[in-house]
């Protein structure tokens, strides 16, 4: 039995008369221990898709289930890493993680929980910053805290909603490697959402494109059979990597091309002519002439030197 299964799910937003369908006929199954990456355009419904699994959003039709049980709401068995980190700014790194740990492991002793928090801070290499507030950390460090907070809950599945898209390219590369390493050591199930095809192939076992048809549907699953740990420098020359990337990008671009819709917009250009600056500025407030319009001007005298 797959760990996560979505069957025939669709989701739309807005009132019935002005409804935007976001997702349609989504079927997804993720086995335990798999690293699945869903790639799609910005605004194509990726976040909605992951929220179906996290339970923040309920599907209109179809079901999402974990271990065979239908998902009805958020729960600590599905750890969600937010795109914008969502750390509580008034709590330190340690307190942010402790908030999650205290909630999930209520029956542990204080020392056990404290040790657990410290372990996960160390895992993301932030022990030196444990007592800092989020505002004192860089973007990459914040996202590592967010990952640590989620991992510390020991979820059955780690849901990552564009976790690295707010970071600069170098930090992103570093964190990709770090998260891939953490996954190799822990073997948690991961569902990762991204808009970066390279990132997808670099970290994933399975890549699934989210096609930007309106409403969006899932494309065909691509298996990434490149052995781990993957070296980001060497992989650029790997034939399998190149082939997968071409295939993925083509799928996404083709789907985009098909959804192009023709529409016409009437544009009205400004009708006002430039003001004559040679004319002295008048302080007259009444009976002002106002701007000259092209449509008013019927006759124009032009002096031409003979």
């Amino acid at each position, binding site marked *: 039995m797959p760990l996560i299964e979505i069957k025939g799910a669709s989701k739309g937003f807005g009132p019935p008369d002005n409804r935007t369908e976001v997702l349609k006929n989504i079927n997804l199954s993720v086995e335990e221990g798999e690293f699945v990456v869903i790639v799609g355009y910005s605004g194509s419904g990726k976040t909605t898709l992951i929220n179906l699994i996290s339970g*923040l959003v309920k599907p209109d039709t179809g079901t999402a289930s974990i271990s065979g049980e239908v998902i009805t709401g*958020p729960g600590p068995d599905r750890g969600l890493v*937010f795109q914008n980190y*969502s750390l509580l700014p*008034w709590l330190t790194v340690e307190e942010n993680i402790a*908030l999650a740990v205290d909630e999930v492991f209520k029956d542990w002793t204080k020392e056990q929980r404290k040790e657990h928090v410290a372990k996960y801070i160390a895992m993301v290499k932030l022990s030196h910053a444990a007592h800092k507030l989020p505002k004192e950390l860089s973007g990459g460090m914040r996202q590592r805290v967010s990952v640590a907070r989620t991992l510390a809950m020991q979820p059955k599945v780690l849901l990552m909603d564009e976790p690295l898209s707010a970071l600069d390219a170098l930090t992103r590369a570093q964190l990709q490697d770090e998260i891939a390493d953490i996954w190799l050591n822990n073997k948690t199930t991961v569902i990762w959402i991204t808009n970066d095809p390279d990132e997808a192939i670099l970290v994933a076992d399975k890549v699934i494109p989210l096609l930007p048809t309106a409403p969006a549907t899932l494309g065909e699953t691509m298996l990434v059979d490149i052995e781990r740990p993957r070296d980001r420098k060497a992989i650029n020359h790997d034939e399998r990597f190149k082939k997968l990337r071409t295939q993925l990008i083509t799928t996404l671009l083709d789907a985009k091309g098909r959804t192009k819709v023709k529409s016409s917009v009437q544009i009205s250009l400004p009708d006002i002519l430039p003001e004559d600056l040679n004319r002295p500025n008048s302080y007259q407030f009444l009976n002002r002439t106002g701007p000259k319009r092209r449509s008013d001007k019927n006759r124009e005298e032009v002096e031409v030197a003979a």
Partner: protein
Amino acid sequence: MQHIIQKYKLDSIFLPFLAIFVTCLFWYVIAGKSVITEKVDDFGDKIKVTKRAGLSADLPTPVETWTASKPYIVEPFAKRGELDQGILRFTWMSLVLVAQGYAIALIIGTPIGFFLGLSKPFTKAFDPIIQVLRPVSPLAWLPLGMILFSGVKIMDGEGRTTFGASDAAALFTIAICAMWPTVMNTAVGVRAVPQDYLNVAKVLKLSKWKTLWKVLVPATLPYMFTGFRLSLGIAWLVIVAVEMLTGMPGVGGFLWQQYNANSYAHIILCILTIGVVGYVLDRLMSVVESRFKTA
């Protein structure tokens, strides 16, 4: 000259003093002055008659104000009689009353703000009432307070009333007038809590109670403190009106009593005291407020 002023930032000291001086000068010009004229009375004796003249004949000049106020300022804690005490002693009495009323305002206002912020039906139901009650003047609330608490009478062992209807009415008036900024700001703050923080609470499955204390309250604190600060300003405004109407001892009470005693210099002393204390309170609150600003 110019660069010396710039170097020592003299303009930030010099200009306010200049403005104060100009204001005092204007005050002196419009104030009444004593004019002494010699006159022959009915008995043929020469007598001196003192008359006040000027644009506003009864308004004391700055110097007269200072001379008359001196005993109250030099001995700020003196107690010469029930209604003749040093100015800081009066201020302290007013501050104690304000503190009590203000505390009631916060204790009642903050939860109401939270309910308004959290529940749309609650907002829809109570918003009209709040909007109508909010602009009502303290002068209007006080009589209602008198009626509401007419039965209140707490006496000490010797049979003197320590807390009567007028005390209760005073607290009621301060509380109900000062409450609104706290209510409104808290409500706005709760509505402005980012959805991300609430999602975190949802994903972590925090209990309602824990969500309130760990997420909502800290996220709302900056807004709440803005409300607290505005409320304190209003509480201090209200105190004068309340003391005038109830005759309680305090800066406002002293002001009204001195007006009735034709001792106009003391009115100006009271006005300046009220202004300075209000300013100091506002500064203190803004210091506290800035400490609670998060991210």
